[in-house]
């Protein structure tokens, strides 16, 4: 039994993006008249990782499974939390320092659910969605991250 009886009407979307995407129209799509709270998370490409200077990276995805598993995550979020909408987009391909890698937006009646669902979605995406990060370091080294 889901915690959120309105889950059937929750907008829940996950997408992969091969090129940079705009957050503004996605956020706009979550701006619903009955939702008073919106929480978002963005992951950006940093100039370092665990002390090593990073020049750039790319994300490789098993696209069909990543799409299916990502959609499963946002659908689960819609059932678990009292939210109005949830949307997550993850980049693939080549990214530069400062580029947006992943975005999660959640709208809800109240901030507790918005924060909790947003945090849950990014945690699950990082744990479950088959996407892999390949980093190139300033010293010329490069490699796959497999935590």
């Amino acid at each position, binding site marked *: 039994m889901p915690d959120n009886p309105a889950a059937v009407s929750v907008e829940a979307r996950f997408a992969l993006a091969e090129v940079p995407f705009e957050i503004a129209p996605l956020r706009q799509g979550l701006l619903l008249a009955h939702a008073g709270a919106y929480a978002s998370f963005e992951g950006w490409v940093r100039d370092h990782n665990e002390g090593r200077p990073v020049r750039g990276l790319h994300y490789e995805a098993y696209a069909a*499974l990543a799409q299916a598993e990502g959609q499963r995550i946002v659908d689960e979020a819609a059932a678990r939390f009292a939210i109005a909408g949830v949307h997550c987009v993850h980049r693939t391909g080549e990214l530069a320092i400062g580029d947006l890698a992943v975005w999660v937006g959640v709208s809800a009646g109240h901030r507790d659910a918005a924060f909790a669902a947003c945090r849950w979605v990014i945690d699950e995406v990082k744990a479950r*969605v088959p*996407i*892999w*990060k390949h980093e190139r370091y300033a010293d010329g080294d490069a490699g*796959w991250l497999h935590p």
Partner: protein
Amino acid sequence: MATIRLLYFASLREAAGCDAETVDSAAPDLAALYAETAARHGLAWPRERLRVAADGAFARWSDPLRDGGEVAFIPPVSGG
């Protein structure tokens, strides 16, 4: 004997030297298929650190092979 399309990603793709290949296997389940594949390509990952997907959905290592199916061994993910 089943004909399987194997997909490789990230460091497994680099270790296998290809992103996909078609193999014939008599392995009884996906665990045995990974053992065969790891031996053939010299893959270093122990199976316990991987997940497995069949036909675009996560699967169990004990699942049998489906003739004509698609299988991917999933190394630890690092999205986000």
